[in-house]
């Protein structure tokens, strides 16, 4: 009997990727791939210790799209997601959470935590 939850997770990930995404460049060192990524709302926060403004944004990317150097990979700290307008989002952990997590128990997609490191061109 098919796992209906797994099918549902795949359906949701496909819908997000096909209909609620934008084209971005995902970069690690000298490797990069153009892929569809769903941008979650940007959260502005201010670091309480030194009053530093930080723009946080999560991205949802289908695991099967994240291919660098012909290998399917997991996100890594310091990877960069670049938007068409030049905004760069660096993959960085949160204070209480690693830099990414699977969106479901099946690893269909990744929710990736990033912070903006430059403005738009």
């Amino acid at each position, binding site marked *: 009997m098919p796992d209906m939850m797994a099918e549902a997770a795949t359906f949701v990930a496909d819908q997000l990727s096909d209909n609620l995404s934008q084209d971005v460049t995902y970069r690690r*060192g000298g490797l990069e791939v153009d892929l569809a990524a769903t941008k979650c709302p940007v959260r502005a926060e201010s*670091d309480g*210790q*030194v*009053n*530093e*403004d*930080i*723009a946080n944004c999560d991205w949802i990317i289908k695991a099967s799209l994240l291919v660098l150097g012909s290998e399917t990979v997991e996100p890594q*700290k*310091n*990877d*960069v997601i670049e938007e068409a307008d030049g905004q760069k989002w*660096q993959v*960085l*952990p*949160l*204070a209480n959470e690693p830099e990414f997590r699977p969106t479901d128990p099946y690893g269909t997609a990744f929710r990736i935590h990033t*912070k*903006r*490191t*430059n*403005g738009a061109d």
Partner: protein
Amino acid sequence: MAKASIVQIAEDVTDQINKKQGGWSQSFKATRKYKPKTKLEETDQLTVQTAIAAWRVAPDNRTDWAHEYDIDIGIQYRDNEKAGDQATQKFDELLSLVEQISDYWEDTRPTLADCPLTAIAFGTGGDQPYIPEHIETLNQFTSIIRLTFRKLR
């Protein structure tokens, strides 16, 4: 109108740091802020800010009150994504700068606005020369040097 002692001290601290430009291992311009403010997008440039941090008053004797004024010097820098949190050489250089600035105040031990320097501390209370959490979550070196000046009034 005369400035409040703590304001004069903060201004003098900033001036002294900037007057020594060329004498530091790295170039920067310190700016005085009432509330330090930076953006993550801007700390790829070395940023140095000074600010009033605290003002404590306690009785010293039967007639005088001891006023202690804390001034913070904040130093921030973030390397690019290639180096990330492994920018050891750059972070080493920044710690050297922190030591130079601290040494400067130790060596000169100035009296500013009639208030002698009485203490130098690091961090916001934990004696840390930099904030480890910023290395982990921002790839950023953040250091705070706190100068304490004292005056009987």
